[in-house]
């Protein structure tokens, strides 16, 4: 009970001042039949050292010494040390949503800076204070497009992250929002533009694509935008790998961008917490979900920041709100803001170029192994690529694991037509030695000890 700042005598004193005979008096309002008259069956109280031991043991069972080529919406990048130093300051860590602006200026200014950075990177006019993650952000972006256009259908690229599409399906099901899926070109891995053109109609609220897409291929955004806009539908671009924006042209033709900002200094943490964010053209701001920070002045004319346009939100509008979102991912957005401050204008480009180089070397090296082939060669990629092998992934993956390598993820789990195809990711933390070891193990060649 080391977190409870009271002595037994103080508890007695307080009860006396309340006029209660015992603590049970304060719980008497709970009908006797509903009261729990036994200990909870949870582990006994641990000492702090035991807690650390327990989680260290769990961490060790997870195996830490593997190089991993996994990506697919969760990316391992180097995390500068000062991120954790700064976000563990109690004033950031243990504060609430900045509703009381006068004593929350630190959080508010940092969110304003986050909004600015996201707008700059995505080429949009405005960005919000964060969403739960890239998947829910994409679903909320589609619902936002429905509000903007007054239309009730969405067209979705099959190259959007499959789990994002599943989340959208969960949301869309109860919104009277049918979605149709458009496939990809088997040569390029890009969205099939002819099929898209056939699907988009005057009833389409939004076209949702991802770029780089789930195969790591960069979509032809200007062409997709032209098709969507020809029918006055909105274009939503989902970005799962935010680092790509250091070197990939931002989707300026989009109306809404939904981004997963995990790559900006956020640990993988087995899939969360991550950091979604929605950015958009200025004219759509009043239909945006989530919190927004705006600049204003105090009564002496000093610059300050406040949560604004909150008449969109659930605590004011209740069932007419743009979303039910309340708590977002503020501290994770702060991590992203610090990360982007560290790399800055030049660093984000240099970092993205390193990713491009690593993935290019990995794609060439792995695909030149016997029985291996690189798919979707006809379009530009960022740092992921699809490898097709003669052997099934089940056959070669153990050879890689024996060499402390986690290879690419099997795509047939989501795309049955892509048998023996795996999605590989090489970020800046992958070394040439990792790639060479993986290539040799893939080829079943004897691997020399590193």
């Amino acid at each position, binding site marked *: 009970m080391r977190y409870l700042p009271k002595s037994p005598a103080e508890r007695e004193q307080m009860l006396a001042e309340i006029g209660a005979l015992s603590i049970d008096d304060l719980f008497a309002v709970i009908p006797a039949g509903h009261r729990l008259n036994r200990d909870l069956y949870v582990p*006994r109280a641990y000492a702090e050292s035991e807690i650390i031991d327990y989680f260290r043991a769990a961490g060790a069972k997870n195996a830490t010494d593997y190089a991993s080529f996994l990506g697919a919406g969760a990316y391992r990048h180097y995390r500068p040390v000062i991120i954790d130093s700064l976000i563990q300051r109690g004033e950031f860590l243990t504060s609430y949503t900045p509703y009381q*602006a006068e004593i929350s200026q630190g959080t508010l200014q940092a969110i304003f800076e986050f909004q600015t950075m996201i707008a700059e990177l995505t080429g949009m006019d405005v*960005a919000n204070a964060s969403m739960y993650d890239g998947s829910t952000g994409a679903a909320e972006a589609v619902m936002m497009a429905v509000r903007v256009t007054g239309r009730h259908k969405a067209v979705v690229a099959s190259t959007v992250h499959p789990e994002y599409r599943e989340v959208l399906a969960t949301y869309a099901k109860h919104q009277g929002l049918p979605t149709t899926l458009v496939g990809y070109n088997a040569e390029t891995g890009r969205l099939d533009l002819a099929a898209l053109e056939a699907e988009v109609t005057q009833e389409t609220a939004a076209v949702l694509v991802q770029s780089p897409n789930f195969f790591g291929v960069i979509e032809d955004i200007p062409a997709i935008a032209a098709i969507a806009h020809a029918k006055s539908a909105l274009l939503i671009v989902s970005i799962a790998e935010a680092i790509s924006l250091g070197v990939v042209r931002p989707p300026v033709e989009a109306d809404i961008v939904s981004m997963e900002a995990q790559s900006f200094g956020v640990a993988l943490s087995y899939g969360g917490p991550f950091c979604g964010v929605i950015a958009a053209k200025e004219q759509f701001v009043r239909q945006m979900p989530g919190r927004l920070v705006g600049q204003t002045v105090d009564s002496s004319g000093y610059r300050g920041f406040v949560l604004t346009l909150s008449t969109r939100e659930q605590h004011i509008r209740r069932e007419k709100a743009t979303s039910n979102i309340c708590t977002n991912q503020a501290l994770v957005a702060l991590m992203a803001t610090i990360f982007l401050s560290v790399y800055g204008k030049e660093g984000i480009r240099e970092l993205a170029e390193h990713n491009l180089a690593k993935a290019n070397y990995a794609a060439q090296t792995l695909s030149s192994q016997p029985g291996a082939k690189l798919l979707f060669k006809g379009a530009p990629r960022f740092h992921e690529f699809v490898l097709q092998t003669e052997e099934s992934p089940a056959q070669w993956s153990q050879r890689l694991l024996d060499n402390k390598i986690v290879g690419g993820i099997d795509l047939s789990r989501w795309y049955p037509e892509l048998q023996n195809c795996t999605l590989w990711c090489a970020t800046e933390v992958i070394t040439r030695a990792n790639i060479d070891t993986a290539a040799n193990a893939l080829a079943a060649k004897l691997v020399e000890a590193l």
Partner: protein
Amino acid sequence: MTTDAMILPRATTGKVRSHQTQNEALLFEKSSPGKRAYKLPPLDVPEVDAATLLGAAHRTTPGELPELSEIEIIRHFTRLSTWNYAIDLGMYPLGSCTMKYNPRVNELVARIEGLAEAHPYRPDSLAQGILEVIELLQRCLLEITGMDAITLQPAAGAHGEFTGILLVRAWHESQGNARKKILIPDSAHGTNPATAAICGYTVENLKSNSEGGIDLEALTRQVDEETAALMLTNPSTIGVFESQIAQIAEILHAKGALLYMDGANMNALVGKARPGDFGVDVMHLNLHKTFSTPHGGGGPGSGPVACKTFLEPFLPTPVLHQNENGTKSWSYDRPNSVGRVRAFYGNVGMFIRALAYILANGPDGLRQTTEDAVLNANYIRAKLEDIYELPYKTASMHEVVFNDKRQRALGATTGEIAKRLIDYGFHPYTVSFPMIVHGALMIEPTESESLEELDLFIAAMRAIAREVEETPELVKTAPHSTRVSKLDEVQAARKPILRWRRTA
């Protein structure tokens, strides 16, 4: 013993604005070309030409990110941090928000390499450690709630509500009729009606009775064959336990409707009573409230949803499965599932922290925590009810709700009293909520406050009440000691400036 005199308004002088720590510019305004806070290791693979590789997809105009050195970034965010109030600085009595101490060991264990660096798609065989953590947390939360099955996937409380109401809907659909409406008391959080709406239900308002609780007659009248569920916060937003909860459940169940519980106020119940034992069918928890994960200036949260056995088939995909050989894996074979509500498995970093909190407390600690939270709220009530009007006299649990009737008569509102509280070194309570209390002051001290801190808070509240009588202008123009004074919210909304832009 602290007396009022010891903490009387020291002033109205404000902070020294000229000091550089109080005038930190925006990152973008501090930037100058060529500064660096990073260095990449030498590239160990051949360089590539991005323009050639990417063609038309190559970015030629960089985003306007700041260029700074490491020390400037450290100073920038450290200075900003000092402009925030925080639990670490003092009492943060926001009702409904449960601003309790965030233990630091939680932060340490969440960063253990094997847990923090685990990729969500790594093979289950390399993830047994984290799966065991998730499984133990699930078991603890089921025991605490008295429910049968659980998902940890929802990212926050409102997301948990969404998931829970989807379960309700899926179950009704399996019975042949999704039904049309959700009943929501007028005392509810705004997320409840917003959630019902995005799940495709209409919202029907349920008027509270004279004690601020559920009016059984109105409920009986309003529940019909088209009612999917009642969304109930228990204890309610005025901090009162619904003592007729069993009857409420019965009335609903008799018409085939379900009882959803918003678990925002579980800090009043852990170890003392279990929703599963009093008729709740499905509920969400807020790990960032009850289980001490940090609020972080607005998130991340985590909103697990627990339910009874009959709702289990509908839980989001995937669910954690125990294999016969003792290992654990994710099961995707869920034909009746409502689907996914989020990519991957949830805010796992928050699971680790919540479990660390449960382990630090054990059964005795969890119960004592709840008792102290309730004791603190009742102590504040006893010490302030002669000065601030208590609209509902019903017994308080973990929070107490006053109104500003007496102070308003003298010209000061709850919002102004709240701002004045800042000058006394406290974060304001929750203002003007719940909506059934006009001019509400909603105070939730949590268990984390010592007697000394509580007495200081009480003295401040009493001093402000006196100021309202004697020097009301002092209250109405508060806060006086902050870095910025009252901010112009109207201007912010009328001509929104939502980002910095370079001015030529």
